[in-house]
């Protein structure tokens, strides 16, 4: 099968093409964040403007013609309504023009499944760390096959926490990675540490960091922020590892690009003889390839939706999505 996937849930408009589980191309255009976060309507306008170009580039990079496509996937959610709409619209237009099937995809499932495939893991415990989300996941067969949430943040996702703080201390984008760079050479300052079983909370940590931001050195704050927040994630993950007795651990999502977090998780895994892996950064950042990858599986399972039944769902939880 030859399937295209379109991702548009946040600042990235991405298009990927997959053939039998192999990514042929993965092209993206990112809305350039100024300093105010992102305004959904501006971002969706950006997506609308670049959609045609990115789709064309993805086809060219894959070396295929549109009429060779067997199906198309789009991110149904979670994400920003106006942005999701653009991806859905593009998918519908293509499906209409080419007479091919449509598969709606859960964004988080995309990150998890592609990372799992690249890491060569079968049934791992997953730490999914992105902007709005931070969750510990494991496949469950309860009722239907899906990723069950074992633990998650009580308030904000770790990515948003890092970004908010980065903006507060006037670091330039890309926020998450700029905190990592600024942490070099820092010293430890005690910060609030909140883990409840397999859940955790970042808001107290962020509030304290902002309080301290005028008084303490930037590198000390960034260093302590990373050490504290990542230790929390590792602790909750280790607990889930013990509970589920998983032999595999996978990290994915935007913050999975952080090398300090990866090395800490590698320690956790090694301690329990657990295999540990992650996917290439290009798939930890938002991308269309992962959407194509999951869409192909959905279509192969014989599931698709009609042109008139396509929807977007801003709060589409990962545990509501069937996984094939």
């Amino acid at each position: 099968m030859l399937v295209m996937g379109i991702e548009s849930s946040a600042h990235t408009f991405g298009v990927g093409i997959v053939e039998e589980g192999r990514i042929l191309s993965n092209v993206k255009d990112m809305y350039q964040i100024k300093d105010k976060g992102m305004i959904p309507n501006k971002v969706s306008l950006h997506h609308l403007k670049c959609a045609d170009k990115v789709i064309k580039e993805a086809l060219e990079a894959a070396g295929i013609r549109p009429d060779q496509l067997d199906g198309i996937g789009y991110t149904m959610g979670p994400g920003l309504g106006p942005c999701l709409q653009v991806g859905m619209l593009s998918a519908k237009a293509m499906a209409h023009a080419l007479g091919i099937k449509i598969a709606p995809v859960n964004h988080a499932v995309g990150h998890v499944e592609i990372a799992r495939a690249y890491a060569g893991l079968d049934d791992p415990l997953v730490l999914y760390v992105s902007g709005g989300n931070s969750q510990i996941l494991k496949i469950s067969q309860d009722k239907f096959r899906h990723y069950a949430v074992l633990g998650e943040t009580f308030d904000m996702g770790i990515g948003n926490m890092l970004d908010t703080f980065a903006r507060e201390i006037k670091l330039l984008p890309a926020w998450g990675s700029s905190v990592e760079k600024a942490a070099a050479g820092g010293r430890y300052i005690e910060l609030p540490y909140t883990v409840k079983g397999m859940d955790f909370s970042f808001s107290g940590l962020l509030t304290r960091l902002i309080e301290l931001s005028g008084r303490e050195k930037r590198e000390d704050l960034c260093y302590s922020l990373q050490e504290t927040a990542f230790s929390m994630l590792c602790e909750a993950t280790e607990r889930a590892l013990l509970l589920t007795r998983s032999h595999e651990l996978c990290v994915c999502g935007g913050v999975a690009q952080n090398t300090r977090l990866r090395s800490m998780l590698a320690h956790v895994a090694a301690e329990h003889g657990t295999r540990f892996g992650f996917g290439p950064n290009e798939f930890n950042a938002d991308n269309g390839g992962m959407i194509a990858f999951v869409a192909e599986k959905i279509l192969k399972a014989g599931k698709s939706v009609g042109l008139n039944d396509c929807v977007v769902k801003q709060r589409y939880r990962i545990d509501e999505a069937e996984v094939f």
Partner: protein
Amino acid sequence: MDYGAILGKGAEADIYSFTAFGTEMVVKVRNPKAYRIAQIDNSIRRARTKKEARIMAHAAGIGVRVPRVFALGTFSIYMEMVKGKNANLLEEKELASRRVLGSAGEMLGMMHSSGIVHGDITPANIMVSGNGIYIIDFGLAEMSRSVEDMGVDLLLMERSVSKNGFGLFLEGYKGSNASSGNVLKRLEEIKRRGRYQNRSLD
């Protein structure tokens, strides 16, 4: 320090077994975690060890079945050995026939009624022995009357067992906690809340 045979490994601690004066005991040692820096690691291990021993004594005092604590070190707790298995190693059928989840629910109800929140109540921290169950692992416990904290306890349990299993757990819980209605209401609220949100505008 060499504690002898390793009996179990939890997420936070290693458990070693030994015999003293003819009594089989275990020592729960919070060994350093290689993933986190020493400053964070030491303060967490020290604080949790102290709190765990204190709250275990408290729980025992109100009739919750916990291993008896014999001695306390900086990072270690010496306690009675429970002869049995962790509940997460048992099949659903066996859990049901031995009334494991029902009595665990009953014990959590007693704890909540007396202002103890467990903080990590999952089948991994319930031990099933020949003469009934034991609640272990009070490292994340708190003395707290907060309905929110109690709701989180229930949430943790709900996510770690089957639907049916949680039903059994709740039967026990309601029987021993007169204010269980409030906690259950809060549980539903927590589940509906922003934490189940997804991507935000930033």
